[in-house]
Every structure is written in structure tokens, then in C-alpha cells.
């Protein structure tokens, strides 16, 4: 049955996870600049260790 599977067209590259994720995003016409929001801790004012656990603001 594995040879049956490997002959199956559906084993095309499209079913590999990373390309599927990319397809999913392009199909929605989205072009995120990062593949995840992992930032360098030093260069963001928002990563101050101290301070309250939740910071919320009203916006208009």
C-alpha cells in the first residue's frame, strides 16, 4: 500500500507543512514581515521586565 501511496499525486510538495502554511497565508493575500513575533529583548521598550503583568489602555 505504501507504493500505492507514493504514486498518489496527493503526496505532492503542497502537503508538506511549511509550504502548506505559506500557501494558507498567501491565499488570504497576507504578507507578514516575520514568520513569528520573536524579538530581540534589548531593543524594545515593551519588554521591560518589571511593571504590572497587564497593561491596558482605552483607545478611541
Amino acid at each position, binding site marked *: 500500500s505504501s507504493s500505492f501511496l507514493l504514486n498518489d499525486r496527493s503526496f505532492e510538495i503542497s502537503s508538506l507543512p*511549511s509550504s502548506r502554511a505559506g500557501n494558507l497565508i498567501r491565499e488570504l*493575500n497576507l504578507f507578514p514581515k516575520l*514568520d*513569528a513575533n*520573536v*524579538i530581540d529583548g534589548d531593543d524594545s521598550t515593551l519588554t521591560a521586565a518589571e511593571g504590572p503583568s497587564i497593561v491596558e489602555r482605552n*483607545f478611541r
Partner: protein
Amino acid sequence: FPNILADAGDSGDAVQDLGHHAGYYKLPKSQGARMFYFFFESRKKKEDDPIVIWLTGGPGCSSELAMFYENGPFTITKNMSLAWNEYGWDQASNLLYVDQPVGTGFSYTTDKSDIRHDETGVSDDLYDFLQAFFAEHPNLAKRDFYITGESYAGHYIPAFAARVHRGNKANEGVHVNLKGFAIGNGLTDPAIQYPAYPDYALEMGLITKAEHDRLEKIVPLCELSIKLCGTDGTVSCLASYLVCNTLFSGVINHARGVNYYDIRKKCEGSLCYDFSNMEKFLNLNSVRKSLGVGDIEFVSCSTSVYSAMLQDWMRNLEIGIPALLEDGINMLVYAGEYDLICNWLGNSRWVNAMEWSGKESFKAAKEVPFVVDGKEAGSLKSFGQLSFLKVKDAGHMVPMDQPKAALNMLKSWMKNSLREVPVDVSAEGEELVAQM
């Protein structure tokens, strides 16, 4: 937000404080993660309006997708201003949208080990957030609370509901008044939903009988691989993902170009929907300043979060649901009838197969029409805590395709009146009494 278009139906003064909040929460079980959220007070600010949290799928897509294109208070117009969404779910509840798992949307971390791989990490983060949110808004802690979402959130929602229920029973923190959870076109029980692909595709005329029978030969292998994956496998779950996705890609290869979110439509090239205005809007300096996100990028969908969750994909999240139903927590599973990727047939099958005290009564229950504006908007089956709704003329994103029906569905379900003749959301007051 800048330039909200005032709307006659709502507060004329666009700068009036609408009770809209945005914030960051420092995740305690992390090295350096902060989760971003929106909180919209209900539009009519009624004292007893419930709280609804919405979780977007992907996995790894941001909550702003649903907020602007499905059920949020606003839609984005072509000229980058906002217009009120008449059928925003803030018409019926206070709304929380959370960019999760961390790494997506405006949520970020300084340590990639914080990127979540399973439902334990996801549900702990959401529970910790909820505790902090209620500490920030103690006046809301007693409100009825509902967990909702779509697509891959079919995994997140049962896990988060079980986590809240466990916290309540253990008196872990603030008691959360969890009344129910609703899954829209979800992926919850892969062992039942993947084998449904060829059957749904044949029923909808996407593949021939011969192609169907050929794909059927893969089903036993897929089912075996899911058994090996179980509830805590890792490599075995990745293997199962590859094996079982040949069922889905097998259908797609035969139904070239079909939009698997809504089989009535074709994708133009690689484009099935155009959500690019959301990225443009959230990258406007004026908006970023309003939200207080500093120099944090907006990641509309994260490929890294998607890949990190792959080992979670084939796990069965149905197993924790019966205990919640037995403890009186309501579940609504709804599905737009033209969605292929999380189709109504696979969802109906796992809901009917679920082992709980009401199983036989639910299976025996009659399907009744779900009526909106005097027209059938879907077909409903319910018993006790459990309801299943097949929504007409909708695909994967029900609140986007049928906004009025979706708001009616939410309102009726939260009022526990989904099983009676649902009333039209605009028929308030005496008319409502007449209908009742």
C-alpha cells in the same frame, strides 16, 4: 482608532469613549512573552451582557482576521477608515480577541522557546490571561462567560474550556462563570473528520465515485496513524499529519482550484480571500500609536506558530468534552455547509459519535429549521447541553458569510433559546414577546 465613521444607528460622536481597550499581558509561564488583546465593551453596555472570547485558528493566525472580517465591531473600508459592523457580536456581548498562540498578531516574545507546541501551553496561557483580565476588571468577573472560535480553534476551545473548568473546581483563582463554548467549522476529532473528506467531496460533486473509492483506501492507514499519535504523541503525530493529509490533498488535486473554505467559489490564482487591508490598517502609524504597540510588528499569520503546532494537529480534543457537558456547560458546534476543510459532515459525525449521557437522545433528536427573518438559515439538532447547527449558504467563516444569522445564533444560544423558534435579533421588545 482614528476616523471611525459615525453611524446613525450608533453613537453619533465617533470620539465618544466607546469602552474599547487594547492591552498586553505578560505570560507568567514564559521567558519573555506578552500576549496582545482587544476588549470591546458591549455596544449597549447592558449591566448583564455576557463576555465572549473569540479564538482564531490557523494555527497561528491573528484574532484581527475575525475581528475585522467576521464578527468584530468594525469593518475596514477601502480608504482605511472603519465602519460599524451592524452584526458585530458586541451587539450581544462584551468581546475579547486575543492574539494567540504567542508569536502571532501583536503578541510577541523575546525567547523562541515560548512558542507553544500543544494545548497545555495554549490553554494555560489563556487561563492565566483570563485571571489577569478579571483582576483588571473585577466588575466583569461574575458575568456569564463563553468561549468561541473557528477552524483550528476546534482544538483550542475544548482545551481552554477544560482548563477553566479545572481551575474553577480547584478554586485556583477568580471563579470564571463559564456557561458554554461554541466551535465554528472546527477541527476537533481528526480520526472522524479526516475520513469524512472523500465522503463530503463525493456528496458535493467535487470528486467521482471512482476517485472516492480510491481515496477510501487511505482511510485505514490514516485511522491507524491517528491511534498511534494518541493524545500525547509527537513524531507519530507528525507522521499521522502527513498520511492523513493525503486524503485532503487527494480531494484538492481532483477538484483543481476549488476554494476549500467555500466550494461555491474559485480561488483567483493563489488568492482565495483578500484580507490585505487589515495588514495595511494595522501598520498605519496612527493606529499603532492608538493601540500602544510601539515597534512590535503585526504578524497576520505566523508560519512558525503553524509549524510548531503540527504535532498537536492530529490529536483528539473531543475526549475532554463529555465531562464538561455532564457538568452543565453548553456546547454549540456550527458549520457553514460549503466549507470543505472543516466540513459540516465530519463535524456532525464526531458530535453524534461522542460518548456522553445524552448521546442516544441527541442522535434521536429531530432536526428543526433555524429561522432568521422568517427564512430558514440552517438546520438545528439539540438535546440537553449539546447543539449542532448546519448553517445555510455559508463557508468556513460563518460570521463573514451570514452575519445576521451568526448574531442570531449567538444571541439565541446564549439565551438558551436556540432550541425554540429563534427570534430575529432586531425584533426586540413587544415583537419578541409575541414570538415567545
